[in-house]
């Protein structure tokens, strides 16, 4: 059974994108090499020790977020085996074993092995202790990565879980946005680290407390002659592994039909009875549907909670840095900005449900759909933007920023809804179809380019407000402040209108193509009514976003052909 599962896992990996896999192998290999370089090349023992502690902690964190970021290619899910006549324990064990048989797991173990290189300088016994510790810690990291992935999958079924996932993604985005800060600090600190090692202090204490450090600490104790202490640490590590094993097995046991019962069923009897707050128009219908999707669909809710938490995390970071404190007042603007990223693939997230837009097409339906989606985004995000803005303006104490924030928010929100809906239209990227979604990344396909298009489009679209802010900031007078706010509001309205209009013009006549991209993963241009390409920027984005998916399919086809040829050769 275990063997069968391992074979299945490798078959699934073979069907994933080879380019991506190769990139993963190279990056993993480089990271292992860096880890070993730290263990072998750094001459001073104290410095080597602190560098290794830091790098191993990095592997621990990487193990936790890695599978989530990689969207779980090659992750076997318990549901696949729900119908097999196997005891559930056996399935869970097989799933766990399959987690260990992978290149990534090999890398983790290799990296942990660097402890042995460090410990071997102290003799044979510390090296042995280090080796045992490395195996235990490696196994721990691998199991932890599966447990975190499983927990996030389960978490997508509850409101609290979505918030927790939102915090994770929020921290990730915050790290990406404030990347320059992190990078500059890192570059400075690596140089200092390699020269001096970590100073005694809270950072070192926290690092030493992490289980990833225990093998190294155990080896150090063994080298100092404290074998009892070394064994104690190894024992603790083994106990931790046992806990993780139990957690992983419990999580991996297939539970067919596991759906969390919601408390308080959401429904709108007033709407169904012909009422409702929204106008009973075509646009009103779309707004109502979209707001309900944003609130009830865990994947949409994750996008909005990610935006919220990105603002909160960045705002908090800025509050902590003395000179950047006034920047925290703009935390709400960041929420508005991330709104565009969260909505950059609306049609792809709808999946094949887009057929309704195709068969329900009339003279105004495309316009109503685009505008309705924009309004819904605005209505869903405005309260969140305000909820973050108010406390952070107060905490920053920078009251002079109020008119600037009041100008930036409408401008960014308008531009973001426009950029999002336009990118959604031209770069449809279907993930897993709505009914089959499980993991936190299932709703989108490959949206790497989309995010950049939205960032770029939003930044360009708010240019008038930026100019007004630069002009107005050194002139704090009621008149200039009012003027800046007016520019911001007009800019937001204009950007939302213009970008939305471009989206409407693009989609008119192309709805079947949007559906084709979702249903068949390609565009059909061979017919008499084939979608015309005008060679413009929008088509470039459309073609580029599609190319990745097309290439993936071609590679699959090549693989299939090769396999067929091989099979034919063995038969013949």
């Amino acid at each position, binding site marked *: 059974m275990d063997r069968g599962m391992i074979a299945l896992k490798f078959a699934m990996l073979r069907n994933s994108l080879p380019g991506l896999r190769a990139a993963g192998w190279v990056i993993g290999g480089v990271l292992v090499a860096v880890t070993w370089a730290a263990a072998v090349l750094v001459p001073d023992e104290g410095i080597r020790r602190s560098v290794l502690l830091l790098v191993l902690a990095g592997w621990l964190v990487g193990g936790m977020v890695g599978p989530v970021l990689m969207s779980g290619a090659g992750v076997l899910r318990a549901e696949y085996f729900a119908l097999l006549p196997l005891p559930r324990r056996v399935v869970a064990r097989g799933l766990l074993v399959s987690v260990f048989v992978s290149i990534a797991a090999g890398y983790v173990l290799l990296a942990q092995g660097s402890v042995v290189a460090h410990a071997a300088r102290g003799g044979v016994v510390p090296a042995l202790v280090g080796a045992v510790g490395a195996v235990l810690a490696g196994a721990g990291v691998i199991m932890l990565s599966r447990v975190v992935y499983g927990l996030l999958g389960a978490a997508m079924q509850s409101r609290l879980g979505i918030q927790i996932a939102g915090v994770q993604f929020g921290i990730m985005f915050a790290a990406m946005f404030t990347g320059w800060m992190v990078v500059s600090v890192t570059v400075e600190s690596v140089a200092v680290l390699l020269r001096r090692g970590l100073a005694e202090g809270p950072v070192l204490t926290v690092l030493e407390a992490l289980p990833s450090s225990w093998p190294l600490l155990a080896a150090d104790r063994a080298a100092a002659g404290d074998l009892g202490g070394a064994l104690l640490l190894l024992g603790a590590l083994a106990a931790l592994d046992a806990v993780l094993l139990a957690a992983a097995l419990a999580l991996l046991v297939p539970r067919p039909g596991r759906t969390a019962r919601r408390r308080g069923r959401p429904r709108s009897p007033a709407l169904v009875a012909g009422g409702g707050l929204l106008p009973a128009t075509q646009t009103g219908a779309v707004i109502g549907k979209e707001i309900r999707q944003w609130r009830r669909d865990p994947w949409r809710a994750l996008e909005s909670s990610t935006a919220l938490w990105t603002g909160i995390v960045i705002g908090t970071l800025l509050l902590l840095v003395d000179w950047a404190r006034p920047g925290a007042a703009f935390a709400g603007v960041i929420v508005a900005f991330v709104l565009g990223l969260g909505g950059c693939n609306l049609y792809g997230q709808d999946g094949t449900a887009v*057929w309704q837009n195709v*068969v329900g097409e009339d003279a105004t339906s495309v316009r109503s759909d685009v505008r309705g989606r924009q309004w819904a985004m605005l209505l869903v995000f405005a309260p969140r933007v305000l909820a973050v803005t108010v406390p952070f303006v107060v905490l920053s104490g920078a009251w002079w920023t109020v008119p600037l924030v009041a100008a930036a928010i409408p401008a960014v929100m308008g531009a973001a809804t426009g950029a999002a809906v336009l990118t959604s239209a031209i770069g449809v990227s279907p993930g897993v179809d*709505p009914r089959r979604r499980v993991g936190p990344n299932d709703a989108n396909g490959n949206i790497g380019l989309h995010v950049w298009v939205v960032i770029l489009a939003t930044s360009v679209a708010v240019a008038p407000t930026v100019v007004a802010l630069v002009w107005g900031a050194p002139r704090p007078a009621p008149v200039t402040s009012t003027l800046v706010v007016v520019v911001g509001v007009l800019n937001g309205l204009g950007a939302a209108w213009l970008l939305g209009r471009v989206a409407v013009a693009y989609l008119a006549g192309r709805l079947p193509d949007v*559906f084709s991209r979702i249903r068949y993963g390609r565009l059909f241009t*061979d017919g008499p009514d084939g979608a015309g390409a005008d060679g413009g920027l929008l088509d470039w984005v459309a073609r580029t976003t599609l190319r990745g998916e097309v290439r993936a399919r071609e590679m699959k086809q090549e693989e299939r052909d090769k396999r067929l040829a091989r099979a034919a050769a063995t038969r013949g």
Partner: protein
Amino acid sequence: MAGRREVLADRPIRRRGGAVTLDGMSEHTSGQVPEHAALELRGLRRTFGEKVAVHDMDLVVPPGSFYGVVGPNGAGKTTALSMAVGLLRPSAGRALVHGVDVWADPVEAKRRLGVLPDGLALPERLTGGELLTYWGRFRRMPRDVVAARTAELLRVLELEEAEALGTLVGEYSTGMRKKIGLATALLHTPRVLVLDEPYEAVDPVSARVLTRILRRFTAAGGSVVVSSHVMALVEQLCDRVAIVVRGQVAAAGTLDEVRGGSSLEDRFVDLVGAPEVAEEELAWIAG
């Protein structure tokens, strides 16, 4: 359509000895002069790379007919119907709804069409009632008409309880999804219904309700095209049938013409060809 203000709630569904009548549905389909075929496919073709999924298909569905399209898995039924309703661009050929080209004048053609696709998603996080309300308003029907038809459709299709419980479409069973899908197809009083596997996973009681609704629809002059694998069902329901094999219509006409004296299933197997199971094959199956 927007000017039609009839309220269906005023004409209640009546159950007489199990008979369900749905008043007010598709009544404007009667009295039309049948100039054009309800649905016509002319030389319709779709290739996927090298593979020709639909091979210059011709098909004429007369107005008022209950038309069955049958064929083995992968014969191209769904692909052909997708092209006929505007979901998939044809490589060549035309699809006409009451003489209106689906691809040249999609808005006019789609106004006349009601579609139930197979295996596609819906807005999964809405309840059935919310979905119908959205759909009705999206199709620019008056608010009170939408509300009345929604209530009536939910009642007739026995989805009221799920609605009261707040069950979302994503939590519906396959049969319930078919029913709510049919409701969306019917809501705007189309003249031609194109239904892909409408009876799949629908329980026998609901199937009867469904059949009565569709019969009523055709009796009022509407036309229905259903695709199915189930020969008995098609034989029982349809007055006309087409057998699709390898992307082409192998036989088409009235039920009797196509059957040619034998059963539809025998005729189907004749055309499609069935692999023989020799005596010694699968001998282990009895244990």
